[in-house]
Every structure is written in C-alpha cells, then in structure tokens.
C-alpha cells in the first residue's frame, strides 16, 4: 500500500496547495498580482487533475488538465490583463471589509468545510473525502472573494477559482462521467463572462453594464 | 261568555279611569302647592272639547301624522287592558306577557316619535330625538325588572307573576325592593314625569313629550292625551298589581270578589296618584343629559336585582 500512500500524499498536497493559493488570492490587493495568482491557481489545478488522471488511469482527464493549463492558466489571465489595461480599470482592489477579517472568514470557511465533511465515513474512500473537503474550501473561498470584492475583475477571478474547486471535486470523484464535458462547459461559461465584461464595458462593478448607466437603474424604475 | 265580559269590562274600566287618574294627580299636586287646582274631572272635559274641535294639520304633514294618534292610542289601550287591575287570569291575559306589553308601549313610542318628525319642524325633532335617547335606557331597565320578576315567578305572564306575589313564597327580598325602585324610575321616565320631563311645561329646552306632540290639535291631540293618561294608568296598575297584589280576584271567582278587587284597585290608584304627586312636588326637574344617568342607575339596579336573585335564592 506504499504506492497508494504516495499517490494519496501527492494528491493531498496538490489539493491543499489549491486551498493555499486561494488564500493567497484573498490576500492580494493589486489587480495584476491577483491575476498572476489566479494563473498559479489554475496551474496547481492542472497538476492536480493530471495527477488524478495518472492514478485513476483515466486518460480523458488529461484533456481537462490541458484545458486548465492552456485556457485558465494562460489565455484567461492574459485576456484579463488586456481588459484591465484597455478599460482603464483601477489597479488596486477595493475590498468590502479589510483583508484581515476576510482572511479570518476564510479560515472559518475552511473549518466549516472540514466540519461538514467529517461525518462522512466508511463507504466513501479517504482520498475522495479529503479531496472533497479541499474542493469545498476552494469553492467557499471563491464565493467569499466574489462577495467581498468590489471590482468586477476580482469578482470574475473569484468565480473562476470557485469553478476550479468544482473541477477539483469532479476529477477527485473517481470514474465520474462527463467530467471533461463539464469542464469544457464551464470554460465556455467563463469565456462568456469575460466577453461580457469586455462587451458591456463593466469597469468597476459587476452591477452596471455601462458606465453611463451607473446608478440610474437598480432593477426597477421608481 | 262571562270571561269575555270581564275582559271587556276591564278594557272599558281602564279607559274610563285613565283621565280620572291624571286629574287626581293634578289635583293633589295643586293642593300640595296650596293651589285649589282644577277639578279632578277636568281631563274628561278637556278630552271632550278637543274631540269636538276641528283638527288643524300642517301642510307638510303626511298620512302618518293623522294615523299615528289612533295607532298610539290603540296600542297603549290594548297594553293597558292586558295588565291585571282588579282580577288576574282574564281570558286574553295570556295573549301577551310582560315583555310583549313593554314592546307594545315601544310600538306606541316609535310611532309617536315618527309623528314628531313628520311635520319637519325643530320642535318635533327635538322631542323625538330626546324621547329616543330615553327609551334605549328605559327599556333594558324594564327588561331587567321583567327578568327579576319572571325568574322569581317562573313565568313572564303577568297573571302568574301576580299570583306568585300574592302567594306565601315571596317573602321580603332585596331583589324585589330593587326592582320596585327601578320600576318606579322607569315609570317616571316613560310617563314624562318630573324629574325626567315636565308634563305641564312648554319650555323648549326642557320638553320631551310635549315637544313631539306640539303640532297636534283637535281629536288627534285628544287621542294623544288619552293615550298618555292610559299609559300613566298602566304603569300605576302594573306597580300596584305586582307589588301590592292584595285584593286581586282570580278568574272565575264570583262577582263579590270582583267588586272587592275593584275597590282595592281604586284605592291603589288613589294612593299611587297621591305618591306620584307628592314625589313630583318635592323634586326638581333635571337637565336632559342627566336623564341618561338617572336611567342608567335604574338599569344597574335592575341588573343588580337579577344577579342578587341568584345569591338570595337557589334558582
């Protein structure tokens, strides 16, 4: 069982690394740094997926890993760099609460996700269980990022890290069908969002689709 | 046939005696005030004179104005004829119990108030309005008295109540005393006597009954006056029959009993009239809006009488 132990340790390490990178993303208050860390996030994900493909003997997962590597670690960060430049978005990230409390909340979320996964025993194998706990933590941290940042781009980054958590979970579930399709679908979704941001010229906030329309409309004309 | 005769004679008796009682009260009042006063027969003369006169009816009056006096008179007459005077258990006495008699008087008042409104003058309105303020307080008080009596006697029939009051079971009861007081108060209010109303004045601020009938003249006024007398007689008879039932004849007893009953009745009327006059001369009329308090007191007394009944006797 030594081999399995190694497999397990590496998978564990990579998944844990993903959580760590998520935390580091939470810590950033520079736009470009954030984007760079997102690239790292995607990179770690790609490695993790590739490792899963190896140990599960599921070659199709390499496709997912490839998507993560090419699309998420390269194309998207570059595109977002461009958008930030082109649209003249502020280089600093405005947070809703300070970085410190956000980090604390993040710790709480990790504790929560472990607490939720603790009662899962027996039937589910350990690997999946640990993986799932990390994936859940990544998802929650991604959500936290979305709700604690004012900038549109950092919110998109939050969503993308959330999605990375999903892919982590999906690949961790051994033998799950449609994983590749799902990761492709999500990539399309992200592409849509990024294109949307570009098309609608969403500079500062998620909420308004045009700078001219700022605050004039909030759902209902009074 | 005999029974019908007795009932008929009571009907005529009340009609005949009513103006006399009014005259008697006026006479006593005058004497108490050290005036000589008109003859006790004066009311009869007044009525006859009024009957012979032509009636003057206001232009704006409707048929109701002309029908009402007869209606009022008939209702009160029927009611008065149903109250035991000299004998109980007359043949038609069961056609209306005490509640129905109260309601008959209510009918009369209803039409009197309408007649007051009919011509469309302020006086009629003021009278009707005040009368209808007094009635809603007097009637519940009356109903409470009825409750007390009928709970005691186990019946709302006047004849049965009287029979019970003659009987030995009554005893001295606080409830009975309270309902007597309440009944007297209600009677004063209903008959427009001092302190509630003054039958002898035409001062607009104080009038109630007289204001309503101000437009009446001739035979219509005669009917109204007769009805008022009958009503007074009714209340005196009622109080007499319930609280001093002695001498009352029962149905089917001989002529002698009826005669005794009749004499006793006359005596009771005389005493009642005297007391009324005495009371009226010794008290001042109250403001209209004090009347409500006066009658609320009667109502409270009546209600208290009912409640005390449960304490004093295991019903």
């Amino acid at each position: 069982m030594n081999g399995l132990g190694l497999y397990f340790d590496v998978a564990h390490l990579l998944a844990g690394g993903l959580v760590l990178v998520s935390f580091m993303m939470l810590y950033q208050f520079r736009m470009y740094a954030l984007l760079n860390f997102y690239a790292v996030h995607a990179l770690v994900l790609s490695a993790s997926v590739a490792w899963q493909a190896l140990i599960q003997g599921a070659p199709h997962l390499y496709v997912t890993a490839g998507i993560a590597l090419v699309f998420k670690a390269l194309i998207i960060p570059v595109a977002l760099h461009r958008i930030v430049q082109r649209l003249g978005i502020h280089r600093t990230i405005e947070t809703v609460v300070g970085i410190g409390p956000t980090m604390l909340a993040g710790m709480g979320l990790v504790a929560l996700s472990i607490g939720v996964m603790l009662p899962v025993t027996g039937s589910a194998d350990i690997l999946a269980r640990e993986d799932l706990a990390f994936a859940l933590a990544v998802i929650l941290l991604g959500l936290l990022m979305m709700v604690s940042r004012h900038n549109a781009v950092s919110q998109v980054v939050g969503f993308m890290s959330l999605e990375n958590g999903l892919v982590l979970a999906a690949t961790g579930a051994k033998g799950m069908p449609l994983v590749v399709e799902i990761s492709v679908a999500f990539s399309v979704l992200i592409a849509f969002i990024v294109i949307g941001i570009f098309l609608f010229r969403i500079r500062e906030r998620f909420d308004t689709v045009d700078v001219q329309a700022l605050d004039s409309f909030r759902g209902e004309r009074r | 046939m005999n029974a019908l005769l007795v009932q008929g004679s009571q009907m005529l008796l009340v009609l005949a005696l009513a103006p006399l009682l009014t005259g008697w009260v006026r006479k006593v009042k005058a004497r108490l005030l050290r005036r000589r006063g008109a003859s006790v027969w004066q009311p009869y003369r007044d009525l006859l004179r009024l009957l012979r006169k032509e009636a003057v009816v206001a232009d704006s009056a409707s048929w109701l104005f002309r029908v009402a006096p007869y209606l009022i008179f008939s209702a009160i007459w029927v009611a008065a004829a149903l109250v035991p005077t000299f004998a109980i258990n007359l043949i038609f006495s069961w056609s209306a119990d005490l509640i129905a008699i109260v309601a008959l008087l209510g009918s009369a008042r209803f039409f009197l108030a309408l007649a007051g409104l009919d011509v469309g003058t302020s006086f009629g309105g003021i009278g009707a309005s005040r009368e209808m303020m007094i009635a809603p307080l007097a009637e519940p008080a009356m109903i409470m008295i009825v409750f007390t009596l009928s709970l005691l006697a186990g019946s709302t029939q006047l004849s049965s109540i009287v029979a019970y009051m003659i009987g030995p079971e009554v005893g001295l009861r606080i409830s009975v005393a309270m309902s007597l007081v309440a009944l007297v108060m209600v009677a004063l209010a209903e008959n427009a006597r001092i302190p509630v109303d003054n039958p002898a004045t035409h001062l607009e601020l104080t009038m109630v009954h007289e204001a309503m009938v101000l437009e009446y003249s001739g035979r219509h006024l005669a009917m109204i006056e007769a009805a008022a007398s009958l009503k007074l007689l009714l209340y005196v008879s009622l109080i007499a029959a319930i609280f001093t039932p002695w001498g009352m004849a029962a149905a089917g007893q001989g002529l002698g009993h009826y005669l005794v009953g009749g004499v006793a009745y006359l005596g009771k009327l005389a005493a009642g009239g005297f007391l009324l006059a005495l009371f009226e001369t010794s008290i001042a009329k109250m403001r209209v809006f004090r009347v409500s308090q006066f009658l609320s007191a009667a109502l409270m007394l009546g209600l208290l009488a009912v409640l005390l009944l449960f304490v004093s006797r295991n019903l």
Partner: protein
Amino acid sequence: MSHEELGLWLVRAVLLVPALSACLLALIPGYRLSARLNMLASLATLAAAAALFRVRPTPGAFLIVDDVNVVFIVLNTFVGFTTSVFSASYIAHELEVGRLTPVSLRFYHAMYQALMAAMNLALVANNVGLMWVAVEIATLTTVLMVGIYRTHAALEAAWKYFILGSVGIGLALFGTIIVYMASRSVVGEGLDAMAWTVLVRHAPAFDPALLNLAFVFLLLGYGTKVGLAPLHAWLPDAHAEGPTPISAVLSGLLLNVALFALLRFRMVMAGNAEALAPGPLMVTMGLSSLLFAGFMLYRRHDIKRLFAYSSIEHMGIITFAFGMGGPLANFAGLLHMTMHSLTKSAIFFAVGHVAQAKGTQRLSEIRGLTVSHPVLGWALLLGVFAIAGMPPLGVFMSEFLVVSSTFARQPLLAIPLVAGLLLAFGALLWQAVGIAFGEPQGESRPVHASTVPLWAHLALVLMAGVYVPGPIVRWFQHVAALLG
C-alpha cells in the same frame, strides 16, 4: 416498428424536433414563416409528448420516461406550444413598434426552440449530469433572450441573471458531484452511478452525510433557478425586461423544470432513512419565499415584475408542500405546479397584450382595463384570481389540500403559511383592482391579440378546479407516493 422502438423515437422526437428546428430557424430570415414554423415545431413536439402517455420506452442510461416526468413533459410542450402561438401575435406587434429587428427575431426563434429542447432534455434525462447540463443550457438560452431588447435595463437584467445563474449552476454541480460520490461507493463507477433509476433504488445504502451535503448544494443551486428567496434576485428583473413570451416560459416552465430537478433529488433523499429529512429545509425555504414575495408584491410598480414576484410566492408554496410531504401535500404540490404553469403563463399572455395596448408596463398607467379592453381585462382578472387561489379555479384545490393537511399535522407551520397566503392575496387583489377597475388612463392602442392560448389555459385551470381527469389523478397519486 415495435412498441419499444416507437417509444424511443417519440422521446427522440421530443428532443430532436426542437433542437433541429432551432438550427433551421436560425437560417430562415422571414419572420412570418419562422413564427409559423416555430408554432409547427412546438405542435409536433407536443404531439410526440402526448403520445408518450401511451407508449413509453424502457429507461435507458441517458433517457427515461416514467410517471414522474411524463406529465411535466406534456405540460412543458403544451405550454411551449401555446406560448409559441401567443408569441406569433406578440412578436408581430414588437416588430411594428420597432423594439425588435428581423435579425434579432431570427435569433429569438432559434433560441426559443433551443430552450424547449433543453427543458425537455432536463425532464427526460435519466442522468443527473445530463440533467445538469440541460438546465445550464436552458439558463443560458434564456439569458440571451432576456437581453434581446438591448436596452440598458434588459442587458442589466440579463447580466444579473447570468451571474447569479452561473453561481447557482456551480453549486448545483458540486451537489451533483457529491451525489455521484455517494452512489459510486455503492453502485460502482461509471454512468450507472448517475442514473435516476439506479440512485433511487440504491438510496438506502448511500452515506447519509454525503447525501445531506449534496442536498444543501442542490437545494441552493437548483433553488436559485426555482427562484426561492433569498436566491431569487435574478427572477423579477429577468421576467420584467425580457419579451413577454419568455416571461411566460420562464415562470410557467423553467421554474418547474428546476423544481422538478429538486424533486428528483428529494426522492433520493427520502429513500435514505438516516439522511437529513429534506422536509424542514424545503419548508423553511418555501415559507421564506412565500412571506418575502407577499411583502414585495405590495410595492411593485411594474406589472410584469408584480407577477414575477407572484411566481416566487407560488414556488414557495409548492416547495413548502413538497417539504411537508405525505400523499395529500405531495399531490397538492404536483397539482399546484401544473396549475401555476398554466395560470401564470396565461397571465403573462394577458400582460403581454396589455403592455402592448397601453404602451407601458407601469402599473400606475394601467387602469380601468375592464372598461377599455374588456376581454383582456376580465381575462387578466380571472387569471389573477386563479393564481390567488379563488374557486372554482385549480389553485384553490391545491391550496385547500396543502393548508388543511398541514394544519392537521403541523398547526404551527400552517399559521405562517396562511399568513403568507393572505398577505399575497391582499397585495394581488389590491393591484388587480387597480388594474382592472376605475377610470381608464393613459393611451390605449389597438392590439391584434390572439386570446385563444389565454382562454385555453384558463379553461383548463377552471376545469381542473372542479374536475381533474382520472388518469392525471392516478399519475399524481403515484408520483406523490414515490415522493414520500
């Protein structure tokens, strides 16, 4: 052709007819022709779906037609068809006014069929993953259609819908993954571990903790699509800013499809004795939606947003009913779903014509409709009463069953339920009285409205209030028993 084969073809027809016509419609320029084609395709789909009542294929790895979904498929295709009829007369007016261009119309029709295909796929999918994909496609197509007017408001509504929907999709996916993990250790790897039929059969052996976690994510993920408060935010704006046929389809169908997905998972949950009872969660979400929407209804100024909130309210009631469970409440929930789709889409048909006739969606400018447009006015009023649960219309029966059975079992839960119903009723009544009665105001353009779909829906709702056909009752009862 054997029975089995025929059934298989029918299911394929239900999926492929709309999918292929979506491609075809994307190529056809003329709007009249494409509107007709749209109707024709919808009718064909409806015919195929109706035939599924009689002929059913055995469940495969990907597709399934069973008692649980057959009524929804037929309902889905029926409302899809009537809406396409309504859409034809609605779109003509929009073109005249110039709110839509021929190009965007081409896009609109293609998307309409794509949406139908996606919803049908979500309903017939026997695979949780496939269903997830279908719901996602349906969401994306509606996002595109909501933004079709290209106004700021429409774009913003679409954007909001897109972002919130994406997060919902993510949560639902996570739940789906967990379900797979729970079943994998029992059923083994592969497609089987995601098939409904298998999941329901093996549910008792699943790890309850995993199921619990999965259900939380599924409830929130699909609940976002259902529009449960506090996940509802996209719903009112998406309804209000998109074309009205899309509002009708959103309220009448897409919400149902999402709820249907939840129901499937609820069945799995109900199968596992140790798992967290899904009831309390659903009851809480249902009640909060009901009460929240009830209050929101009072301050609405936009007629479509008003009815969108009413959809939230009704989704709350339905979720509550399924949360309560038991044969009566489940039956009522199913009936309520059906009635709500029919009624709400009918209301949106009426509202679409009304908004065209008055040239506005603002409630304050829509007054005295029964005077200025008697047919539309009375139909709208009837629809409002139907949705408010007045007899003899269908919703009354389901509300009767929900309330009375709840009170007999959990009196304390019935109090907020009744309060919410009354609250929402008061608001709807107040708004409806303003719309339908009083002196007519504002402009009043002639509208060549086809009210046939509208009346057809209302007639069905009326019929269901007094008489529900036997076969449907048996299906509902069977499904209610399955739901536990």
